[in-house]
């Protein structure tokens, strides 16, 4: 482990355990520009020589420890997959991107037909590729979030209060994300994206018993949550108009989540085989989500190298897909410089 920052005992032990199991090294780096969720830059996903966990500079205590713990569990899942079989991620090809973008386009047309104020064509075309990539990012991240959270909850009781705060904070950030694009994105995708977050929130609210997680009431900003159960609070959040449809789909996604995660023994001996089983469960759950969202042919399970290369070729794939849909109406320059086609 490479760091000079103080760490609580359970987190230090988890880092050592992760390093021993994976025979690797983890560096912890604080950076003022770091993402509020921290970032795991690992050897199984990126073309790097060492694992780095980047943390926001102002996280100095247990908030930092919680993020480290979550990233360590994620690293264990990735690493065990790589060591025991193959670590695969949801990647894409030109063909799969065409299938995704084509479907988004059809759904967007349906939405546009009902709109009084139509979206400018160039905006609509640009949205297709952006939304496709966004779904790719989400499907590669979100299913692992309830898994790493549940694991940290069961294995690291001293971090539970911190986890509650973080769940409230992260849940709010995820709810608010994309809201400003609500009128641009086809309703179906807005709702599906939010439904995944809704399912995550509800799963964690059920998994993390409220009695142990009553908020830290000495904090003035959190007083309003006093005597309010976590589940009640998270459910209430999702009843507002922007998100109410998410609950309908989200309840089904929660069922999917529970179907797969209920079989995990969170307190079992944490060896490579154990984390490899969790990885396989996460893959099955992701597949079920994709099938439920009718996105089965959108992505393919490939190596992380494949995904990195696909990201590099994204512009070409996107251009090819748009050309197939719109024919000669699409000019490369129109996508590059923002002029209308």
């Amino acid at each position: 482990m490479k760091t000079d920052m103080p760490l609580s005992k359970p987190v230090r032990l988890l880092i050592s355990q992760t390093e021993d199991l994976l025979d690797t090294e983890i560096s912890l780096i604080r950076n003022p520009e770091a993402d509020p969720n921290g970032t795991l830059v690992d050897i199984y996903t990126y073309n790097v020589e060492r694992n780095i966990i980047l943390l926001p500079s102002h996280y100095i205590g247990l908030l930092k420890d919680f993020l480290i713990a979550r990233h360590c569990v994620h690293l264990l899942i990735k690493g065990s997959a790589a060591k025991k079989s193959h670590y695969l991620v949801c990647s894409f090809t030109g063909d799969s991107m065409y299938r995704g973008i084509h479907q988004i386009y059809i759904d967007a047309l349906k939405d546009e037909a009902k709109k009084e104020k139509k979206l400018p064509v160039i905006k609509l075309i640009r949205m297709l590729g952006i939304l496709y990539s966004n779904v790719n990012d989400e499907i590669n991240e979100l299913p692992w979030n309830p898994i790493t959270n549940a694991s940290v909850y069961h294995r690291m009781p001293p971090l539970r209060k911190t986890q509650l705060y973080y769940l409230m904070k992260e849940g709010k950030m995820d709810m608010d994300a994309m809201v400003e694009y609500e009128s641009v994105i086809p309703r179906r995708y807005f709702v599906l994206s939010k439904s995944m977050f809704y399912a995550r929130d509800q799963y964690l609210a059920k998994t993390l018993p409220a009695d142990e997680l009553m908020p830290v009431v000495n904090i003035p900003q959190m007083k309003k949550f006093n005597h309010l159960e976590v589940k009640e609070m998270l459910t209430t959040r999702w009843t507002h108009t922007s998100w109410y449809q998410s609950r309908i789909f989200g309840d089904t996604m929660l069922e999917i989540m529970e179907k797969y995660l209920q079989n995990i023994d969170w307190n079992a001996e944490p060896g490579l085989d154990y984390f490899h089983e969790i990885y396989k469960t996460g893959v099955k759950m992701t597949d079920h989500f994709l099938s439920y969202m009718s996105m089965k042919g959108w992505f393919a399970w490939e190596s992380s190298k494949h995904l990195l290369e696909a990201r590099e070729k994204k512009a070409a794939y996107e251009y090819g897909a748009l050309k197939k849909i719109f024919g000669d109406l699409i000019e490369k320059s129109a996508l590059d410089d923002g002029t209308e086609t």
Partner: protein
Amino acid sequence: MTSKESEVLLKKGYAYAIRTKWREALALYDKALSSDPTNPEAWYLRASVFIEIGRNTEALEDCERAITLNQNFAGAWSKKGHALYNLERYEEAVSACARALALNGNDAAAWYIKGVCLDELGRSREAQEAYGKSLELEIILDIEKEKKRQG
């Protein structure tokens, strides 16, 4: 060089330090200290950089210089606790943090380091109390930061 010029060097050094440009920060702090070694803030700032780059013995010496110049400098006591923790001198670290917290009870880092050291010393119940206090303060700080970020 006047103490005013030394202040300017410290400000410049700090601007580098928050961007984690430790080498540049250290050079400016060195310059400021050679012109005005009576400023406890300068010793404290240099100690902060020393800790970041793992030069804990030098960090501890700088903290002690800062404290000699101002016995009630809460930040220097807190930083001293941090340096002592890194040097695995847990008992002394707990005492330094306790002194820092007597001067400023809202120092989240001091509560956290106190908690970590108490944990190392097997004083688990006291450690949990310190962690709890540190978490409360850290959350308040985070909420304020988020508000600022959102404008």
